[in-house]
């Protein structure tokens, strides 16, 4: 599956796979690829799949979208193409193309873009490898080695400190407090809006704290087990709960 790698200067900020869903690009947090930069329009462009071809469309953005230096309106993309949105470069690659993409931790990415207010995304490959390592350590100690699935929260809309969160803790808190995992921004955000528990059997339950979250549009009435693909809404943010092997 092809993917888009977001870079700023020489730092890799993150990756987004291009599957059947389109990848929207822009400053607004409900885009798939969020670039929080004044030179980027709220809804700047999109990459989508048209009959097997990867297409890029500019939404009539203020500063334009460029492919390999040329300003475009609608164009087909090939692996290796470099798309420029504002000061960010989006490199189109196949998932097998790992050459030259040294994974960079969040710390380095932050150092590369200190002054501009970016939405920084973690490098998905590095995190995936890290989590796999942890899962293996756990497995060797277990009597019955079960395939431990990796649970992630992907923020679809709303202001949070990151776009993706790995749910490795027993308790994940969504809120403004310093101890929260999913940190909410905004003056009126509650310290602890909601919580997600990882139970002994590695099932995940969402529960209310200051606020009552909704799962797939329905407010919960008690701690509710999460399934992959569930969409959680609470305190002005929307997140998708994803379970991967």
């Amino acid at each position: 599956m092809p993917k888009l790698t977001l870079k700023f200067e020489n730092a890799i900020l993150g990756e987004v796979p291009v599957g059947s869903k389109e990848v929207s690009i822009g400053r607004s947090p409900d885009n798939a690829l969020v670039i929080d930069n004044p030179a980027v329009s709220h809804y700047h462009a999109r990459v989508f799949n048209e009959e097997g071809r990867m297409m890029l469309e500019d939404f009539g953005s203020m500063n334009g979208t460029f492919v390999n230096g040329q300003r475009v309106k609608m164009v087909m993309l090939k692996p290796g193409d470099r798309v420029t949105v504002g000061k960010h470069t989006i490199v189109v690659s196949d998932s097998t193309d790992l050459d030259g993409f040294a994974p960079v931790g969040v710390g380095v990415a932050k150092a590369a873009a200190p002054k501009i207010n970016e939405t920084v995304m973690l490098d998905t490959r590095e995190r995936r490898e890290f989590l796999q390592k942890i899962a293996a350590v756990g497995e060797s100690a277990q009597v019955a080695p079960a395939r431990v699935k990796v649970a992630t929260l992907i923020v679809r809309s709303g202001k949070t400190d990151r776009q993706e969160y790995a749910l490795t803790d027993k308790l994940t808190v969504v809120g403004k407090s310093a101890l929260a995992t999913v940190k909410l921004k905004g003056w009126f955000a509650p310290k602890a809006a909601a919580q997600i528990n990882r139970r002994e059997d590695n099932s995940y339950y969402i529960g209310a704290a200051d606020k009552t979250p909704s799962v797939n549009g329905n407010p919960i009435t008690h701690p509710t087990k999460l399934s992959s693909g569930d969409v959680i809404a609470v305190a002005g943010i929307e997140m998708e709960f994803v379970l991967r092997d």
Partner: protein
Amino acid sequence: MSTTAKPMIASALDFAARSDTGRARENNEDNFQIAAELGLFVLSDGMGGLDAGEIASKLAVETIYAHCRDADSNPSLAFEGEHVDGASETSNRLASAIQFANKLVRAAAAEGAKTEHSDNGSGGSSGTPKSMGATVVALQFFADRVSVAHVGDSRAYRLRSGEFLQLTDDHSLVAQQVREGRMTEAEAEASPLKNVLMRALGVDDTVEIEVDEEIAMEGDAYLLCSDGLTRELSDGQIAAVLTEMTDPQSAADQLIDLANLAGGGDNITAIVVRVGAKSGSTLGKIGRWITRSGN
């Protein structure tokens, strides 16, 4: 000052406990221990012939308290058992304490077995019986959350905004069957095997401890109880008491009284903890720690 485990800073904990032999048993094999300065509440229900149960549960709660207390002043104290991934240091320390308690209860059982062997079997009831076990359920409050650890079928509950929630899954055979969809709750209730435990302290060299963490909020009420309470009273009845009686001591007393009225078929113990901002906390009055007073 404590380093690893801190009780709630912004709010104070108001608590009370009561333990009773009930109306059917000769002795009380439940024990509990509370360490306010650590935000720690531990309850244990012992089992075994003669007074083995009482010895086991007392050893369990004392060991858990001592380990947590020692770790508080010495954070580099070795951990017993495996690290719990994704859990805080406080939770890991609590699990370590329970694992350590398992070791000691097991050792005490082995010691008892030796004593019995060397006995000439002259018919006296001297010597510690060779099998003893105990359940345990513990809460430890720190920062804005609480660790919940348990082994067995003693329970922790939470009352928050009208919702009464059982925080712990029973480690009993029938509860396991219900969870797997092989039995209904009603069948479990009626089953003659309903007291059979899948996990307990003192049975194996190591024990599997279930550890969870929860956000703790002002206004929350928590209950730790042995099965002697829940065998007599429904969740609804218990929730009603906790809702109406905001004073923890009154609530604990009422729970025990009602359970005895309903039959008192087993030892009954309840620890009630309320989280709330209090001016003039009662912590000072009650004292730093309390244990079950002979009943």
